[in-house]
């Protein structure tokens, strides 16, 4: 690993509510912004440096990156994420990264399809930023529980990629799942079949399994981004080990979090 990872305090430049129980946290940290690739993540913490609680740092994907700023999308689900949502601009926060192995967008891909469910949008947003700079056509298919949980369409439209939305309750976009959006997209793109199409997905495991199965059926190149409980985030503790379809142990924090779908869900 030629890069030099960073662990120190970084300045919080923005904290903004962007959806129900979801904040965007922007950190000024050139050492990470300069080298982070889509799909990589950071560990935040110690969250309370002078206390032993919470003890462990928390993993978050890089959601966007520009200049010397990295943006994180934080769903408030427990104690640590609640603490994070209560930070204010001007405060410092320890950040460790960049970590893990991100998306490997194949050089010759003609179509890039990014399918995100819920907070799975976090890394795909940065990937979309990245893809929009490439020549290939990029589409972001994004589903959430309801309209209040969706990121604002303005932000998403600013990405400059094609966008389709779905909600479980039909309160915005298509009434259904992100997987339905993928089927619709495939039906509308008869030329997009086979290895020229790159499909990246992040979200609940069931959704990713369904998306990967659709991708496999059309012979797309598919990558999935996994979650695991992490203690170190750097490959040292073996706390995040997952077993691939062959039963081989992989560290989600180091070999992942992004894996070829075939390794996770079978060829």
């Amino acid at each position, binding site marked *: 690993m030629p890069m030099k990872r960073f662990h120190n305090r970084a300045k919080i430049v923005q904290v903004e509510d962007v959806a129900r129980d979801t904040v965007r946290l922007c950190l000024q940290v050139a050492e990470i912004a300069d080298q982070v690739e889509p799909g990589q993540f950071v560990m935040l913490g110690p969250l309370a440096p002078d206390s032993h609680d*919470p*003890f462990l740092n928390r993993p978050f994907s890089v959601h966007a990156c520009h200049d010397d700023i990295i943006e994180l999308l934080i769903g408030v689900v427990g104690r640590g994420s609640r603490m994070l949502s209560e930070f204010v601009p001007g405060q410092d926060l320890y950040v*460790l990264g960049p970590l893990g192995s991100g998306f490997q967008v194949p050089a010759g891909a003609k179509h890039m399809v990014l399918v995100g469910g819920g907070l799975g949008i976090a890394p795909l947003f940065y990937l979309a930023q990245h893809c929009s700079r490439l020549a290939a056509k990029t589409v972001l298919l994004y589903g959430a529980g309801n309209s209040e949980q969706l990121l604002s369409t303005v932000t998403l439209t600013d990405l400059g990629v094609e966008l389709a939305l779905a909600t479980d309750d039909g309160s915005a976009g298509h009434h259904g799942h992100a997987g339905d959006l993928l089927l619709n997209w495939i039906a509308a793109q008869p030329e997009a079949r086979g290895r020229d199409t790159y499909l990246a997905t992040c979200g609940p495991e069931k959704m990713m399994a369904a998306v990967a199965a659709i991708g496999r059926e059309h012979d797309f190149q598919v990558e999935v981004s996994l979650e695991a*409980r992490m203690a170190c985030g750097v*490959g*040292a503790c*073996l706390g995040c*080990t997952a077993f691939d379809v062959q039963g081989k142990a992989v560290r989600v924090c180091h070999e992942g979090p992004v894996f070829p779908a075939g390794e996770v869900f079978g060829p």
Partner: protein
Amino acid sequence: MTKVNTALSIGELKLANPVMVASGTFGFGEEYADLMDVNALGAVVTKGVSLEARRGNPPPRTIETPAGMLNSVGLENPGVEVFLRDKLPWLRKIKPAVIVNIFGSTIEEYGRLAQRLDGQEGIDALEVNISCPNVKQGGIAFGSDADLAYQVSAHVAKSCHLPVLVKCSPNVTDLVAIAKRVADAGVAGLTLINTLRGMAIDYRTGRPMLGNGIGGLSGPAIRPVAIRAVFEVCAAVDLPVVGCGGIVQWQDAVEFMRAGACAVQVGSATFRNPKTANGVLAGMTAFAAEQGLHSTQSLMVTAHAKSVPTGDRKEPGA
């Protein structure tokens, strides 16, 4: 300020300073190499290595707990041959002593491991994890029986020319009795303590939080238990003791030395801040200088520990 000598020996093992990183919390060293100053460590203790590769336990394997964590990694490791081929070459290039942590499921396995690691360039000592079940004796942990602990320690010491540290399990009724027996096994020292057995259950579902159910507790939550273990053992046994358990800052490390430890290991705190061990050495050295001491070893107060009544002469908590 006085110039402070940080060097020490544990039997034949020579260390530039008393701050090590604990087994299983630092991988095989390379994982943290760009995030802290590895060369400022006294020693790197590797992840536990066995004869054959081990898969470890099903996920989830780590859970945060009050002031600490539970892990049920289950000693996943690539096996001794892969260690020698892929991990040792990097470890040879660093300044600190390299201590290979080993474990097995029979006494013979421990011995074969020690033989295999003996004489390998770049290995300075072995640390024997005896918190493992003995498959030949109904799965009771080597470390929970004084005779077994003695036998496995003596067998490892006989099987190699390396200094041997025996890492004791705190999950026993009488640690002092076990330590006393191990002291006769021809080993260089003891490491105290390994994780405490613990468990967390999801109150909603009733299901254990760890894939394996039970795991090992580490972090500041266990420090008082570790300090007590070091204190009692140092008072009773004439063998160098390496203190480990819940160190997050230099004051904690000095506390271990006050209890009688000659050196310390930083474990899970590295997960929070990779530079923890570096800070511990710097802080401890500055403190020794401030106290007008010429060596960090002078922070040990074993004589004091020996003169103070140990817990078993009083009622607990009295």
